[in-house]
């Protein structure tokens, strides 16, 4: 079988040496590691197809890998399976500015798409924090979002068509460069399917005209509830910001200590970004400032330059990595809650945390309810890691109890596989399995991911170990 693969990709396109394979044994979730049998690096759709055909013939599990920045173990190999790395399929295939479309290979880096169309005043909207390293293929698998998903949506909003190799090795095309392609919305079900339905070899994306201007405001409050109310009032005023973020006192402290964005020292910080035509943004921002003050913001500060604006965001993005300054170890959780429930949830988290003696810091994408509680702990204290893991899972369950979901943007993958059973009932999961079986009846496409399997009970959730990319300062954990 290895010989067959070597015949497809050449000796330089296959890795079988153990020490080289170790690079591929995990992704951004470094707590979980499995050594694959081999890694292949195809250069073309034909090579990908030939590889998948070999896997189909021998029933070998496979997983696609882009940059390996995923935080839920999506690119974790199956034991004795192979990894299909798209590092060498990173070309931009075609650009159509008048029709606002671009077609790329899956290994193209997210920001490179924007770079290609920026001279014409366009950008590719989904902006996960790892966007300077993560790839479009991975974005498609995870339906990646980003800070601006409130206004601009997720990857799925921007995918028009996919070239796909099904787990059988068949090549098919989903969607079209034109909208409303007839038939079932196979593109829609494929995006976010975490590699369990096949492998993408080309993606047609929608690009968006850059707004004429962008402004960001910081507002300081004495309570989370007041910041949350401000968000509601902004929405009630028919204003749709590009992004809205809330940080609590502890996360502000962490950000300040590491990046020095000069945030006000407060209980809750609200960040509001507006973009659009100049006159519209100017007037809307005036309204937003009035709303902040009406809700008791004791300071509201508009970034005066692009440099200041980027610093505001740098601080927000540092809130995670900076948690490392507050405690030796931490676990990041990723939940979604209705925004109206934020004050209640935070109060509950605070109570649950103090019961365990641990601290939890919170960052919240206010526009759409994505909450990141960060559980701080010290692994060198016996038993504390277990308590921290347990607390983080209980917090996740509370999110679901309050009408939310257990995944914001980091995928289910391996990490939250069991928790899927908490959120979805048996019929829901069985119905999803109908789709999976239609695409992959022999279960070789990234098996053992996404859906709970009884025999895998008891695996650990993710204590935070910084990804080498983060340590190197190349990527940030958002």
């Amino acid at each position, binding site marked *: 079988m290895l010989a067959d693969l070597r015949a497809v990709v050449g000796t330089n396109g296959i890795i079988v040496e153990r020490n080289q394979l170790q690079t591929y044994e995990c992704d951004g979730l470094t707590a979980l590691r499995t050594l694959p049998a081999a890694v292949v690096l195809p250069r073309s759709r034909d090579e990908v197809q030939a590889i998948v055909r070999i896997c189909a013939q021998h029933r070998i599990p496979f997983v696609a890998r882009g940059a390996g920045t995923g935080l839920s173990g999506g690119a974790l190999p199956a034991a004795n399976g192979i990894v299909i790395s798209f590092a060498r399929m990173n070309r931009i295939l075609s650009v159509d500015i008048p029709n606002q479309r671009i077609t790329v290979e899956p290994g193209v880096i997210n920001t490179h798409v924007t770079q290609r169309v920026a001279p014409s005043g366009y950008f590719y909207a989904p902006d996960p924090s790892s966007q300077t390293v993560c790839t479009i293929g991975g974005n498609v698998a995870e339906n990646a979002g980003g800070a601006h998903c409130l206004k601009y*949506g997720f990857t799925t909003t921007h995918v028009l068509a996919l070239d796909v190799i099904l787990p059988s090795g068949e090549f098919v095309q989903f969607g079209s460069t034109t909208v409303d392609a*007839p038939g079932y919305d196979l593109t829609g079900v494929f995006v976010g399917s975490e590699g369990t339905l096949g492998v993408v070899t080309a993606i047609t994306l929608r690009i968006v005209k850059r707004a004429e201007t962008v402004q960001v405001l910081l507002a300081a409050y004495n309570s989370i509830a007041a910041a949350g109310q401000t968000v509601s009032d902004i929405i009630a005023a028919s204003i749709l910001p590009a992004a809205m973020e809330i940080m609590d006192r502890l996360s502000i402290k962490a950000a300040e200590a590491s990046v020095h964005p000069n945030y006000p020292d407060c209980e809750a910080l609200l960040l509001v970004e507006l973009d659009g035509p100049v006159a519209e943004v100017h007037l809307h921002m005036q309204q937003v400032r009035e709303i902040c003050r009406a809700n008791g913001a004791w300071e509201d500060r508009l970034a005066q330059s692009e440099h200041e604006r980027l610093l505001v965001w740098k601080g927000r993005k540092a809130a995670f990595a900076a948690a490392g300054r507050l405690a030796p170890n931490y676990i990041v959780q990723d939940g979604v809650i209705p925004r109206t429930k934020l004050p209640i949830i935070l109060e509950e988290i605070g109570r649950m945390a103090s019961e365990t003696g641990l601290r939890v810091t919170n960052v919240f994408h206010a526009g759409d309810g994505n909450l990141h509680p960060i559980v701080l702990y010290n692994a060198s204290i016996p038993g504390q890691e277990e308590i921290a893991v347990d607390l983080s899972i209980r917090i996740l369950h509370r999110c679901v109890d309050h009408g939310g979901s257990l995944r914001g943007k980091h995928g289910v993958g391996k990490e939250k596989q069991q928790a*899927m059973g908490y959120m979805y009932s048996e019929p829901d999961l069985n119905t999803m399995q109908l789709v999976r079986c239609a695409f992959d009846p022999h279960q070789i496409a990234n098996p053992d991911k996404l859906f709970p399997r009884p025999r895998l009970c008891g695996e650990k959730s993710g204590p935070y170990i910084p990804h080498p990319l983060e340590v190197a300062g190349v990527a940030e954990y958002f």
Partner: protein
Amino acid sequence: MPSTMPDSTSLQTFADDLAAISGLEHLRVDGGAFTIAPASTEEVAAVLHCANKSGFSVVPIGGGTKQSWGNPVRPSLLLHTHRLSTLREHTWQDMTCTVEAGCVWSSMQASLAKHGQFVALDPLWPEHSTIGGIAATNDSGSLRLRYGSLRDLIIGMTIVLADGTIARSGGKVVKNVAGYDLHKLMTGAFGTLGVITEITLRLHSIPRHMQSFTISSPDVEPLGKLLLKLLDSHLSTQSLQLRSTNSGFYLDVRLATLPEVIHDQANSLSQIAQSVQLEACNSDSDVWNARQQHLDWPEHFVVKATMLPSDISRLTATIRALGGTSVTQAVGIMTATLPIAASSQLEPLREKLEAIHGSLTILRNPVNTTMPVSSSPEDTLPLMRELKQRFDPNRILNPGRFLGGI
């Protein structure tokens, strides 16, 4: 495809079972079919379970406005959804709502308007069509430019499968959720994979100030150029469509932003129009009804064509040359009427569209030609058939309605 031909005993059993589920008062016999109006998702599940056991075919029906779309079906049972009409939840602060599938569109919007919000879509027959039927057919209009399609607006669904399984997809929150987006698969599936009983939608604030402008021209090409320029501009364009009637070609633009800003943008619009030697005027009030008017045109073919924005003016000219009229949304969706005399030109038109990555779907066929209703993607048809087979192995849901006879 014809419905199953059951014998009288099994029909009687079926009728008894249906009456036991929803009550005799909600069961009727209508021509060769039964009709039933269940009151809840659970009753819908019981009805389907019952029909599936004996292989009786079922067509779900909301307002019945689009029953003639797709291939004809002659079911044993019409499942009416009008008793599933409640707006269950409107969490305006989270900008979401959950509504039962049989709720009439206009009454749903009227309820949502109490908090200044709406589902950002302008479907056909809004006073009669239901959210379930609109989702099943993936209808969209001029608001699609700014707000996207139902694929972007629907965040969750409750569906009932052919065997009576009740499944939930997506969630109640706008953010990305775990698992497969089954609700995307159901959207536009014409009721062939399951019956939608409840939908959770993402909402927007109702725009407070809008103004519409029309640029007319004896030639379509300058309007095509203008359309692309406007897509590339910084105007707060909510809707943009190119119309072709017997009296000429028109580009309609609707701006939605603050009043002071609309005034300035109107000036910018005029300048852009002048760059192709054209003039922007205030619109007539009913230009945004053009798509509906096309659907209501009697004794003509009505077709939906998809294309790239840069091909809109060319295809508009083609339709005009065939004696038809059209209105095309800037995203690349055309609704056109064609005279019966042009029936032999439909197949070449479809081929022309497919050659440029588009498609042609026949929405009304006044002469019952044998031409397939829809373009059919050959490579994915087996996969679609496989999905149908898994979701509805006994083929009871809208059998034959979909492309490829699915």
